[in-house]
């Protein structure tokens, strides 16, 4: 693979004068490259053939989401979050960072909280995926956490909400009587930029109350 690189020397903050030199050339991948970091790379740009190689996964897969099995076409590099949002019309799961560092995309896979942005859709075949849309009962009865949020006016912009709710569903399943500390630790992988943490905790404590009362 060849790399075409436009290089230049360092910036001018200290000197106040622009001094630049260009090094441009096609360089074999294994050879040393000149000092540069303003990169224009072409490595790996070859577009692969459409038909999968022998032994590679097929594009048509079956996923089980909110209790329903669906057969959909999914390229191998598609994440579960994208599949949910764009192929299955389930936009309740949000993308806040797409890098496993905010939790807005949290769903349950076999009841366990995962960042759906960091799971390949192909990895959840044969497993049960639950999203926010799958929480309410057929007759519309809300999950205790959803009910609690309504009562406590939990969350503000609510972009993080579905991720937090799904994670809390798993928490209450595992421990219906968590302390605030245990709750904060369980939910520590969910970011709230509005920083509604205090009110979120209040909502979870209320949800636990509802769960125990029910």
């Amino acid at each position: 693979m060849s790399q075409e690189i436009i290089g230049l020397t360092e910036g001018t903050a200290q000197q106040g004068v622009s001094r630049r030199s260009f090094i441009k050339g096609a360089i074999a991948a294994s050879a040393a490259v000149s000092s540069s970091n303003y990169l224009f790379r072409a490595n790996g740009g070859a577009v692969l053939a459409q038909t999968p190689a022998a032994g590679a996964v097929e594009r048509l897969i079956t996923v089980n989401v909110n209790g329903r099995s669906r057969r959909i076409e999914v390229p191998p590099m598609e994440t579960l979050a994208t599949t949910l949002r764009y192929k299955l019309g389930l936009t309740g799961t949000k993308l806040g960072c797409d890098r496993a560092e905010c939790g807005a995309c949290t769903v349950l896979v076999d009841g366990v909280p995962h960042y759906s942005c960091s799971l390949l859709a192909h990895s959840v075949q044969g497993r049960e995926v639950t999203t926010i849309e799958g929480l309410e009962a057929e007759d519309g009865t809300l999950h205790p956490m959803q009910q609690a949020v309504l009562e406590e006016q939990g969350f503000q912009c609510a972009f993080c909400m579905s991720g937090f709710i799904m994670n809390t569903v798993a928490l209450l399943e595992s421990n219906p009587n968590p302390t605030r500390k245990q709750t904060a630790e369980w939910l520590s992988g969910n970011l709230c930029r509005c920083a509604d943490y205090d009110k979120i905790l209040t909502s979870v404590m209320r949800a636990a109350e509802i769960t125990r009362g029910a």
Partner: protein
Amino acid sequence: MADYKLLGKNYQTPDMYAKVTGRSKYAEDHRAEGMVFCKLLVSPMPHARVRSIDASAAEALPGFEGILTADELPDEVEAPNEASLTNEPLYEGEPILAVAAVDEQTAAEAIELIHVDLEPLPFVLDPLDSLRPGGPDARLDGNTMRGRELGEIKWTAADMAGLAPGQIPMDAEAGEEWQYGDLEAGFAEADVVVEEHSYFQSLSHQPLESRTTLAYWAGGKLYVYPSVQSTARSVGPMARWAGVEPADVVVINEFTGGGFGGKISGYVQAQIPILLSKKIGKPVMMRVTRRDETSFGRARPGVQARIKLGMRRDGRITAVDVHAIGDSGPYGRRGDHMNVGSIGSLAYQPLNMRTRGSSVFTNTPPRGAQRAPGGVQSMTMLSPIIQKAAKQLGLDQVEVLKINAPEGQAQYGAPGQNGQQGNVSSAFVKEAIDKGAELFNWSERVQRSGQRNGSKVTGVGVGLSTYSAGASGVDGLFVIRPDGRMYIQSGVGNLGTGSTFDTMRAAAEGMDMPWEKCEVAWGDTSRHLPWSASQGGSSTTHAHTRSNWAAALDARQKLQEIAAHDLGGSASDYEIGGERVYRRGNPSQGLSFARAAQRAIDLGGRYDGHELPEDINGMTTVSATALAGQGLMGVAKDNFPEGGRRMSFVAGFAEVEVDTETGSIRMVDYAAGCDVGTVIHPKNFEGQVFGAAIQGFSIALSQKWVYDRRWGLLVAKRFYNNRPPGFLDVPHEQPMKWGAADLPDPFNPLGAKGIGEAAQGAGSAAVVNAIADALGQENGDFFRSPVTRDMILTQLEQAPTGHDRLTAHV
């Protein structure tokens, strides 16, 4: 506090059900038939010029749909304003061109096939580098704004003589200046003078939802689904960027995932899908990635300042002198650095004061208003200096804040043309401070100051913060229909603060209408919304309780007139209550609202909106006209008296525990005492007080940019590098506490002021002060935020830091 039926009570806002069930749609959740995706080719350099673009290989790719370059933008953007695309990018990540394709996979591959030839240009990251003699400029046309003119400020060798590197020459040239009193006399009167250089970091807004935008054209109209803080206020800008009349624009935005001031009335990058979809005739979804959002989303201007403060032995601040440099990014003009002075002058009422400053351009992301612009900087930078002076005098920190606190219609800030300063409409600050101190148990906790537990040491701190909390002159609009229900129109955006709906309850309150019989229309400008404040500037609570109350007064007057018309007597013989208008003293003589609504339609004219007040905004006129003939219309502009600028006040109290062996800081507890006038929705109020406080904590503790100075590129792009706070970084074992003075602002008929911004500086100031308190007078003063592990450890060892106190972005 007055006894209201609705205001001041908790209730479930009408948007909650959609949110908890995942039905609420944000910008990226919308779909349009035939929708294509666009991706952006952004600048890899901090400053460059595009010499050529070769997109031929991209255009040949199957699935390529279209391209938009800077040359195709319809309007010439006047420097130093920002365009949506550019051939001279001024920061890493600035969009140069956009490619639309059937899917993002194809758009990405297309972009990789585009060759852009860039000429690197000089760049600047640190404002002080640009101000120094011979220093470079971020822009080719200057390094600062003098008023409306682009210009250049360079300090001279004489200015810099005798200064250590990285210091500010107090009296050197500055772009702006104001003062009051006699500074020299003020310092002479002081018993202690503290002078420090202080640094406040630039940091991105980072709303969890990026500014993803979908746009399409149909029937000659533009339909745009942005992520904004105001539907009403975004129409004008979107129309301008699209090159059409506002009447031809529909903005749909029911839910927005955070803004913090960065999305107030739209953003110029919305122009990209707008123009692309017009060009290719298909709906275009521009998904803004987190990386992009960190680039062209907004950020708070950092400030580098030299501050001199004089305090009398009784704690009264006799003089303050500020020279503040604001990091302005590459575009526009920000006033944060000057607000350091003006907001400080309100909070502490210094007897004599001068503020000088310059906003300097840098090749870093564009700045915008971030929750209390300049206010958070003011509180965070001034509070430790006040604390230091107070400690030197052996005074209690809370007492010092009270001695200097504003009250009544206190004056503050830059004197105007007539030599007079502006003033606030009300200030019950001592009450707020007392409330907070009581909740926090200050008198007991302050005894723990410096207490050690193994390697850990405790500290407590208090900070007083203030910021704007109101706006006025917007309109209220509602209709009571013959079904007896009240339909209230809300042009307020929906960031989930609740004010979209909380403030509409003022209309229902004014009509004595049960909330169950009210419906709020919001989120879609085709639903006939009035001119509204943006859900920003902490303005909606104040502005819309007033405007809705005004609309209610208008409707009441009309109901009384209708009753008098039908039943005899004069309007003043009638009163409103229980969903009826009835004769005073003879309640059976009256009309139900339902009946009166029908009568309003029959009578027409003012009653059903066919005739409208002249002073309402043009947008409201259009909306009201569309609703004419549907029932009894309440429509009015807020013309209530002002009494001064509305400002809210929050006193924050924090306890921290610092581990001197690891530099770790644990937030133990926090409490806030507030003066916000009437609290209209306690649960939502709490969300604002603590949400803002926590954002303040992270300013004190973790969030910042880090730039490689040689290449001018941001190395802390990811959350795990720039560190927004999570659950375990904030107090969580016990609930935090808040209390409100509960004294209504006398110039607002409902007494309510906003809260969102005033509460943030309280958090950051209280924490920086608590850290300084923990580490003691020798090691505790940093005068630089955020205070990170390395800073604590380095300071404790008295080791060199590797940079100057004011160095930006390290």
